[in-house]
């Protein structure tokens, strides 16, 4: 048995993890994804017409969740290795609490912005656009359900997914450490079985479940954790040119399907029907299989051809994106608020082109500024904490 398969089946012990250097790819890609999410959360704007979802089956959300898995393995997985399950889980719990509070704050902010906009403009479609009516028609029930994560207006559905996935992280990580391949297979099975039986967590009122069905989306997170774990033990990416070609083929096919206005396989039985289906939409809630395949193709090519310390990542743009990506929770939340405000501005100005461009530019600038500020603030506080205490802390 080769070393690769032995690793995939039997994993490695907690003490065998190497300490890889900082992977610049994660922060930079996540920074880019956060900006794309902001732009896409203002639907109908010209810039979003150029965003990656127009060219592929998977989109920013898929990459975001994959990276969440990878970085959870780096941050909390390593902690579990070094300090044990209890300490690691407590740290994960603390993070979940932060996410929960951020989610609730976001919920209140978003409801407040929409309410203000509707009172001022009398345009009730602002409510429709993000499904926030339940909050206004039955506020007590909506608040209770929001606290339990069982009422999720649009855009307020990613953090609840992340909370659930992170809660499962210690378990997933130990499984991935013990035996990566069976972990992935088990996760794939849960996804397919749940989709088949229509399993999802509830989203009240109504019978639609979570927009990001956790039973489906756990697959991407698990893949991320396994990738992260493999990186921790210093696994190298095998040189498989066949996979390279296959991955490129997937991306080209996806772009062709999404970009062409007609169905190029129209006459072909089964395949023609399939392409037809892909052109009208790709199930996000239950994670269409093509999304995962497309995401894996992208991930493979990045792993193969973007080195962790590539010059591109050290450039000004790469560095700038990494600054944004390093503060993903704060930037994500700010992005949601800005995108909803942006949506309202765009509609009130009838989607005039220059306003669209201005709103996109202003939002991206604010998000980049926030990332820079938080980095600066962090070094400031780190320096202060590192400096000898000169004065006693005031009571």
């Amino acid at each position, binding site marked *: 048995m080769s070393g690769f398969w032995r690793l995939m089946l039997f994993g490695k012990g907690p003490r065998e993890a190497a300490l890889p250097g900082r992977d610049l790819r994660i922060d930079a890609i996540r920074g880019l994804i956060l900006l794309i999410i902001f732009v896409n959360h203002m639907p109908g704007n010209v810039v979003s017409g150029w965003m990656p979802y127009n060219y592929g089956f998977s989109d920013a959300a898929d990459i975001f969740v994959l990276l969440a898995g990878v970085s959870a393995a780096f941050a909390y997985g390593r902690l579990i290795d070094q300090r044990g399950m209890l300490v690691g889980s407590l740290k994960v719990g603390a993070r979940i609490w932060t996410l929960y509070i951020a989610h609730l704050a976001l919920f209140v902010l978003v409801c407040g912005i929409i*309410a203000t906009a509707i009172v001022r403009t009398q345009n009730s479609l602002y409510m429709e*656009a993000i499904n926030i009516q339940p909050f*206004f028609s039955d506020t007590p029930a909506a608040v209770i359900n929001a606290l339990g994560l069982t009422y999720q207006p649009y855009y307020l559905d990613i953090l609840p997914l992340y909370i659930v996935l992170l809660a499962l992280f210690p378990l997933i990580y130990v499984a991935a450490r013990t035996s990566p391949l069976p972990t992935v297979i088990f996760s794939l099975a849960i996804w397919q079985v749940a989709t088949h039986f229509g399993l999802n967590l509830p989203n009240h009122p109504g*019978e639609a479940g979570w927009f990001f069905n956790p039973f489906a989306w756990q697959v991407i997170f698990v893949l991320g954790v396994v990738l992260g774990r493999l990186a921790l033990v210093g696994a190298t990416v095998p040189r498989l040119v066949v996979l390279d070609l296959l991955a490129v083929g997937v991306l080209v096919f996806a772009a062709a399907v999404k970009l062409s206005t007609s169905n190029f396989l129209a006459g072909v039985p089964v395949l023609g029907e399939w392409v037809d289906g892909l052109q009208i939409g790709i199930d996000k809630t239950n994670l269409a299989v093509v999304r995962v395949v497309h995401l894996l193709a992208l991930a493979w090519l990045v792993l193969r051809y973007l080195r962790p310390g590539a010059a591109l990542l050290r450039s000004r743009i790469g560095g700038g994106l990494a600054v944004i990506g390093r503060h993903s929770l704060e930037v994500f939340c700010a992005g949601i608020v800005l995108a909803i405000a942006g949506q309202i501005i765009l509609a009130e100005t009838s989607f005039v082109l220059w306003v669209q461009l201005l709103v996109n530019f202003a939002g991206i600038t604010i998000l980049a500024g926030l990332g820079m500020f938080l980095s600066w603030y962090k070094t400031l506080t780190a320096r202060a904490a590192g400096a000898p205490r000169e004065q006693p802390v005031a009571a």
Partner: protein
Amino acid sequence: MLAAPKPLAPANDARCRAGASQHPFAPVLPAAKRALTETNQLVIVALGSSTTAGSGASEANNSYPAVLEAELRRRLPGREIKVINKGVGGQSAYDMLLRMESDVIAEKPSLVIWQTAVNDAIRDIGEEKLAKILKKGIRQVQGAGIDLVLMDLQWLPREGRYPKYDDYRAVLAKTAAENNVAVFPRYGMMRTWSRSKQFTPEELVGMDGDLHLVDAGYRCLAVRLADGIAAALTGVRPDGKPTN
């Protein structure tokens, strides 16, 4: 506390029919008619987004499907009538297409009222794409031997906010026509109501101070739907004259 909304008396329903001749709704419903004759039952599924879910209406039973059920029961006494509400706020046509089989056809209705496309219009998903999605949904419903009515988008007091709004309405109308589907002319009706001076603007599209969509618009939608459906099933128009 919020003040309880005033119940809307059926006596006030005459105003719902303002300008009815300009925007007729006279669907042909062979499957529903057959079901009613053979089984004495009429099961309708109302598929849609917020307008259907009625989450803006002050109480769940003031949503248009609930009022429609009450109105049809009143008009067709002795019949078993059920209107199942399958509205989910904020959903696009594609979201609804995904649950057409499990949420709609599985209920074995003889009529589906599909209210859709407003979220596709405000998100500008692409007109061609919307046409394909609608066509697929229509085929699915028709293929199951179920009658279908598509509901036109709502009228907006200031449409300029969404420059392509009318283009998307046209897609819905065209796709319906091409596939022999009746359209419930909601947009035209609402515009007529807005000019009839019998409604306040808030009653149609706005909200009261507590951000509740008021119920008048929903009630009138249901009344006009009930008029058209009852006429198609009994051959008698709401004014008592026979159809055709």
